[in-house]
């Protein structure tokens, strides 16, 4: 039991680290041209990482349904708000 959960933690950490290192590539792309794709993927990828942290490190997998839904709701609404602010801001600045 303990070895299995330990492996799971290490795997989660490896996945998170790999995603982080891949953002090195994403962030090194040409910095000066506007790129909604980079921005949205950065935000979405960050939220994927956050959800993994919630479920694996913070043990939400074992939590009661209410807490699971609350954290998922937070992840989704943060995504909506951040992406919304980004695109709305871009639209307003061009208009």
């Amino acid at each position, binding site marked *: 039991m303990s070895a299995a959960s330990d492996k799971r933690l290490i795997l989660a950490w490896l996945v998170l680290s790999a995603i*982080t290192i891949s953002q090195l590539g994403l962030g090194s792309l040409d910095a000066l041209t*506007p790129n909604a794709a980079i921005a949205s993927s950065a935000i979405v990828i960050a939220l994927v990482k956050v959800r993994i942290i919630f479920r694996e490190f913070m*043990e939400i*997998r074992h939590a*009661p349904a209410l807490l699971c839904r609350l954290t998922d709701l937070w992840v989704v609404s943060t995504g909506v708000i951040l992406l919304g602010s980004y695109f709305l801001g871009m639209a307003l600045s061009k208009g």
Partner: protein
Amino acid sequence: MTTAARDTAGRSRFVPGQPDMWAFVLFESLVFTVYFTVYLVHRSQDLDLYRQSQTHLDLHIGVFNTLVLLVSSGSMARCVQAARECAYRTALTNAIWTLLFGFVFFVSKVFEWTTEIERGFTFSTNEFFQFYYFLTAIHFLHLLIGFVVLAVGVRELRSPARRSQETIETCATYWHTIDYLWVLIFALLYVVR
């Protein structure tokens, strides 16, 4: 809530640590989301300035900082699981590793700030740097509080008279929050174009 023989197969559901800490964590996260939103909206009003300024940040340090906090979260999660199985020495070791990685982040952040300041980019240089220093500083403050929280956790683990699983889990919940808040800050300041 100090039972060590809890079912870890996921069959019995439990709230990790005090529900109160979760309330705090979610509320603080909401406040941070407001800060992020303000940043993104301000950013869109002056894209060129922000993009130019972003090139002065070192992406490698950002990635390094993120990896350090992820490792620290990993060790904290292992600490909680070890404590649950009453392997308190392992738990204590992991808690101390968490503190050490936290300290590495601390040093790295101070180094990064010093470098930026030496290059002439201070809090009042321009709007981007206002947000950069603000977000990283408020996060840093949470990190400092995290050291206090970890100290409480280490104290719990050291004495057989204490070792409340709930307290250790509560401390872990707080520490992980510092980690995921940084994940978001990193994405918004260093990666988003």
